[in-house]
């Protein structure tokens, strides 16, 4: 939509010209409630922004240097104790590891599956709205609906997954009970749940691609497969970079479905770092320590974001 913008700052000179008269007062008289400066428009947002974003960011940093507790008692400053403890806490590292593992095993399929869906739907096979509905509908489900449905599919005795294995003559799998399987089961559910979002992003990108190259290549006799690899996919590079970037950041913040399905189990094998923050902060009352763990994780996210931005810039 930025493409429709008038070039440069051209139009801005318009509104600015009256000010050349120096008649600030006349303008006030003209619109008493809204000074031209526009600050008053930003104020409500600014107020909420400061209260519910800046304040917690600062407060969280402060809390990470205290022994703040959920229990009703006084708080004391403890310096870097929480950070020192966090660096030596094996559960911080294992939960960070789980988060990174989850990110790795979800981001790749979430980009590739979504791309495949979009390409297939874009190929023009009849029933567009039905395909879109099928792929995007899961994204509209609240997380608990997803976990309810999948915990039933994964149910050890009667669930679809093990019934299918039984029908194929195979033994049951502990989809959510086996330490080496649980994270994969959650990843599969996550792909099902959220691929539709990336699918729509890809579909929109495909629909706005110029078709001239494609047409020219087709006239030259290039096959569908060839044109996909040589024209369409390269044209989607920027979209792919953006989708992958957003996906990695989204996957790093995983909490909901894991907490509801396994509470981080079995044996801590699926506990993501955000759940560890919840566990030590709320279950374990130690809000200060949880803040420190949050900030360590925040640092990781900032690093990932900056690396991505840098890669992205280079792509451009």
């Amino acid at each position, binding site marked *: *939509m*930025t493409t*429709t913008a008038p070039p440069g700052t051209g*139009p801005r000179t318009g*509104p600015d010209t009256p000010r050349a008269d120096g008649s600030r007062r006349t303008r006030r008289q003209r*619109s008493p409630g809204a*000074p*031209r400066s*526009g600050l*008053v*428009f*930003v104020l*409500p*947002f600014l107020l*909420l*922004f400061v*209260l*519910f*974003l800046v304040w*917690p*960011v600062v*407060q969280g940093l402060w*809390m990470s240097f205290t022994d703040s507790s959920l229990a009703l008692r006084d708080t004391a400053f403890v310096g870097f104790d929480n950070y020192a403890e966090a660096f030596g806490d094996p559960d911080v590292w294992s939960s960070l590891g789980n988060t990174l593992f989850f990110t790795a095993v979800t981001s790749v399929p979430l980009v590739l599956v979504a791309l*495949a869906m979009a390409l297939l739907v874009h*190929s*023009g*096979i*009849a029933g567009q709205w039905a395909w*879109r*509905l099928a792929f*995007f*509908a*899961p994204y*509209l489900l*609240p*997380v*608990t*609906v997803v*976990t*309810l449905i999948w915990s*039933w599919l994964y149910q050890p005795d*009667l669930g679809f997954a093990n019934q*299918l294995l*039984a029908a194929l003559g195979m033994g049951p799998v502990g989809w959510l009970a086996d330490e080496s399987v649980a994270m994969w089961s959650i990843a599969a559910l996550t792909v099902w749940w959220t691929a539709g979002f990336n699918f*729509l*992003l890809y579909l929109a990108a*495909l629909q*706005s691609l110029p078709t001239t190259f*494609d*047409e020219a290549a087709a006239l030259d006799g290039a096959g569908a497969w060839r*044109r*996909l690899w040589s024209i369409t996919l390269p044209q989607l590079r920027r*979209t792919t970079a*953006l989708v992958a970037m957003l996906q990695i950041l989204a996957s790093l913040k995983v909490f*909901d479905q894991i907490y509801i399905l396994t509470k981080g189990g079995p044996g801590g094998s699926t506990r993501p770092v955000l759940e560890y*923050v*919840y566990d030590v902060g709320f279950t374990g009352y130690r809000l200060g320590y949880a*803040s420190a763990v949050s900030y360590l994780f*925040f640092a990781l996210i*900032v690093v990932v974001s900056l690396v991505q931005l840098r890669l992205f810039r280079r792509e451009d």
Partner: protein
Amino acid sequence: MSATTTPPRPRRRTPRERAGAPLLLGHGRLPRVLAGTALVVLAAVWLLPFVWAIATSVQSEQDVSAPGLSPFKGAFTLDAYQRILDRGDVPVWAFNSLLIAGLVTVVTVAVSTLAAYGFSRGTFRGRRALLAVTVAAVMVPPQLLIVPLFRQMLLFDLVDTYAAVILPQVVAPMMVFVLKRFFDGVPRELEEAARIDGASEFRVLWSVVLPLSRPIVAAVAIFVFIGAWNNFLWPFIVTNDPDLMTLPVGLATVRDSHGVQYVSGMASALLAALPLIVVFLFFQRRIVDSVATTGLGGS
């Protein structure tokens, strides 16, 4: 992205109607058959959990506890739905979800639109710096603020209130940014005319800019609504009273004295899924546009 500023908005044609679309598969039979097969298989896999859940929800607990791969193992019954509606908490949570997501959407859209307009047209001091801070704040994941936010709500004595659920959700720097970029592209000639006629800045926004911005405002509203409707973590943290819980939080937290029951579980899941799916069926085009325009931050 494709959200046009010029009314009347032409209906975007589906790819099937587009001249270039058949080219993608060429005119050969084989690619078309392969692509069609892949699409059907993929869609079947995607729909399977729904089919299994729906089938389970219309049987009795005894019937579904028979082994077998068939989704229908017993007689059709809507008992589970009746039981859930009688129990009464699912409708209460649905009401809370609607109220909370509705208020979050209204406030977010109002506040973000005003701010975006101020950032786009304003000349106040520190405008660039504030805008830079707002854009940088997009990087702060709200999930990392749960601990200090909860502490803050304890301080304000707001834990277990609607306000506590709603307020932190209305700060949406990304949406401000998306709207601001759109407003930057709205031509200013009309505004100038209105200003010369003595309209206040608010009047200019309301009567001139907003009518031109309906698609983007709708897109932002839809995006915010879906996000708020499905939000789990923060409402889960700040509500303990079941009467204040949203659908996802209530379903994940509160239990029945009977214990785990799969048929009831599926029925309540499907009831909770219904509202947004229905909305999607009616406003598919708008929702798809919304995701496409706001999903990547309007870039």
